[in-house]
């Protein structure tokens, strides 16, 4: 019976736990410091915080260390940890117009009020393996930092400013129609209630923000490639810091800190319901923790796609999108297949054996193969 060895279970898992710890350390390279991971695996931590739906970079770094670099597994650890914390407040809505912008681009216009700001991005670098990093040491780091600071010193310092939204340009001209959001009178907190379908937009956006980046990328891409009708343009993509406020019990607004977010406003053409009316632009919105532009963009695509009536494409089908991009849940269920299923299997097996017997005795003629295949399929369906 292998891994259901009678009464050996506890000992076996204890040993497996020790062994995996041994695998983490056996090369005897000095242990990674949490601060190193936090500062140098910035984008990994951003993903972990987004999918773990828990903004805490230091904890994210710790989780990544604990699970030997598996980002989704780290997000799982973060989710489990956040579930032990009480939900005390809901933050006030964040107005991203007040964002301290680190990066901001629009692909809809050549120039935008305030200008395009590339900020920290690898978009325009050649993705060649940088062999010199293999031998990078403290001296190299200091040299680069000193030079960089020298460069910046000379630059003219302008007053820190906030930027108006690109999409407001379209809105002012009446080209962009609002989403309406009539379905949302109150924020639905997906961590406190089980979502029912059709889900309100507040729930959909939350679920997308918590979704696995690869999952929503696959579906967002499918929508652009032809399974669905979203052909979007980046109205504006911005990354930066926003202030978070909560209202305390005495109705005072309190500042509790800053979070870095990526915001994507995707513009696509929408057909009007009635044939006579002109088409208009409509927005797809994405907002997620950290700098995760793929996620922000795909979130924007899917937000728009899920508002297209009818389930003609996977990306337009909210049950399909939201259930299956939930990374931590998909991860768990996919791996549960490793659990023993012999009772379930036995139950299906007895049916199958009888059916095969019936099949053989009743018609020794033809089609035997085809029928047995059908039976097998049914048995497979039963195995959960």
């Amino acid at each position, binding site marked *: *019976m292998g*891994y*259901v*060895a*009678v009464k*050996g*279970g*506890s000992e*076996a*898992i204890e040993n497996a736990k020790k062994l995996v710890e041994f695998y983490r350390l056996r090369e005897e390279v000095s242990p990674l410091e949490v601060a190193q991971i936090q500062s140098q695996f910035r984008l990994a931590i951003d993903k972990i915080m987004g999918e773990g739906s828990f903004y805490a970079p230091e904890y994210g770094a710790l989780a990544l260390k604990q699970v030997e670099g598996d980002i989704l597994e780290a997000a*799982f*650890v973060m*989710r*489990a940890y*956040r*579930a*032990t914390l*009480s939900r005390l407040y809901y933050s006030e809505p964040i107005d991203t117009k007040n964002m301290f912008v680190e990066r901001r681009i629009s692909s809809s216009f050549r120039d935008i009020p305030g200008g395009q700001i590339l900020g920290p991005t690898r978009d325009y670098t050649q993705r060649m393996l940088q062999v010199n990093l293999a031998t990078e040491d403290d001296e190299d780091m200091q040299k680069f930092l000193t030079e960089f600071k020298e460069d910046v010193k000379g630059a003219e310092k302008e007053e820190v400013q906030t930027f108006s939204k690109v999409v407001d340009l379209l809105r002012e001209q009446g080209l962009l129609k609002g989403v309406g959001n009539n379905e949302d009178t109150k924020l639905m907190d997906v*961590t*406190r*209630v*089980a*979502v*029912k*379908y*059709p889900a309100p937009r507040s729930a959909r956006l939350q679920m997308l923000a918590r979704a696995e980046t690869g999952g929503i990328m696959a579906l967002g891409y499918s929508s652009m490639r032809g399974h669905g009708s979203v052909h979007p343009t980046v109205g504006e993509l911005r990354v930066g810091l926003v202030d978070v406020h909560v209202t305390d019990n005495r109705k005072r607004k309190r500042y509790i800190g800053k979070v870095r977010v990526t915001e994507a406003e995707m513009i696509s053409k929408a057909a009007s319901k009635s044939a006579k009316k002109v088409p208009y632009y409509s927005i797809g919105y994405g907002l997620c923790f950290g700098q995760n532009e793929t996620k922000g963009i795909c979130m924007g695509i899917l937000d728009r796609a899920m508002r297209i009536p009818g389930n003609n494409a996977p990306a337009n089908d909210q*049950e399909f999108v939201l259930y299956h991009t939930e990374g*931590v*849940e998909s991860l*768990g*269920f*996919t*791996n*549960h297949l490793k*659990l*023993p*299923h*012999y*009772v*379930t299997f*036995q*139950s*299906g*097996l*007895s*049916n*199958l054996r*009888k*059916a095969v017997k*019936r099949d053989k005795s*009743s018609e020794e003629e033809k089609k035997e193969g085809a*029928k047995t295949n*059908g*039976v097998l399929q*049914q*048995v497979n*369906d*039963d*195995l*959960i």
Partner: protein
Amino acid sequence: MVEEKKFHRQFNYAFIDERTKKEIRRKLLKAVCIPGYQVPYSSPEMPIARGWGTGGLHITLSLIGKEDTFKIIDQGSDASVNACNLRDFVKNTTDCDTTFETSKATLIQTRHRITEEELKAHQIMIFQVPQPEPLRGVERYEKKTREMHAEADYAKMWVSLYESFVRFGDIMRGAGYPVKVNGRYVMSPSPIPRWDIPNLSDAECLYLFGAGREKRLYAVPPHTTVEPLEFEDVKFKIEQFEGLKCEITGEQIAFLDELYGSDGKTTHVVNDSDFMDQIKEKERPIQWVNRYLTEKIEKTFNKN
């Protein structure tokens, strides 16, 4: 000092915070009031993966107290690796007593089996459920299955059973055979074998079901009618294990596991590990009584 404290937080008793436990208990009460109805609930994340028993854990942890004795089985076995892990987790966060002995347990969490031993009124059995929706196979959308339940529209389900009979000569459902609870809701009993299905009906104990990933709870209260879906002329049947017996105990009336030895021989053993231990070491515990088992007993012993 704050730095020191940061990574040394104590978890709450039974891991989940009190407010969430209360919410789960309230939803369980609702589930008991409407037998077989799937109640949506918060389903907080656990340090156990989705699909590995989180729904069962939510129920266990929200109900468990210091006086409880906890038993957990996976595929009938107390020693299965995942059962061991979950038992450790529950023990570490509650300090409750744990047992392998079915009769001594007050809370029994299970994956894919009901114990062979009959359960009593003071016992609660908690099922880990992978897919709470019995209609999912015939209707993929949650929105529609909810409507179908609301209208007691189970036509698609009946047709699928009929089609199975027409194509394969029998209702080919194996584990997780669909049942009707209290004459109203069609319910997934979780993937327990058909052998266990009759024991859901008119039991002394309370049955609770938790599907963590799908965020649904449901219940079969004591003395509630649970009927497997069947036709007048095509009946529900349990697994028969005809002519087979347990290699170790000689037991014939129990769900058997099929083992393949390295010598190529097939043998069978009692699946329920505690039932087997009791037979081996003490005496045969009192088993459930249902008409399918009675038939099986008559058939087995009249032949011999």
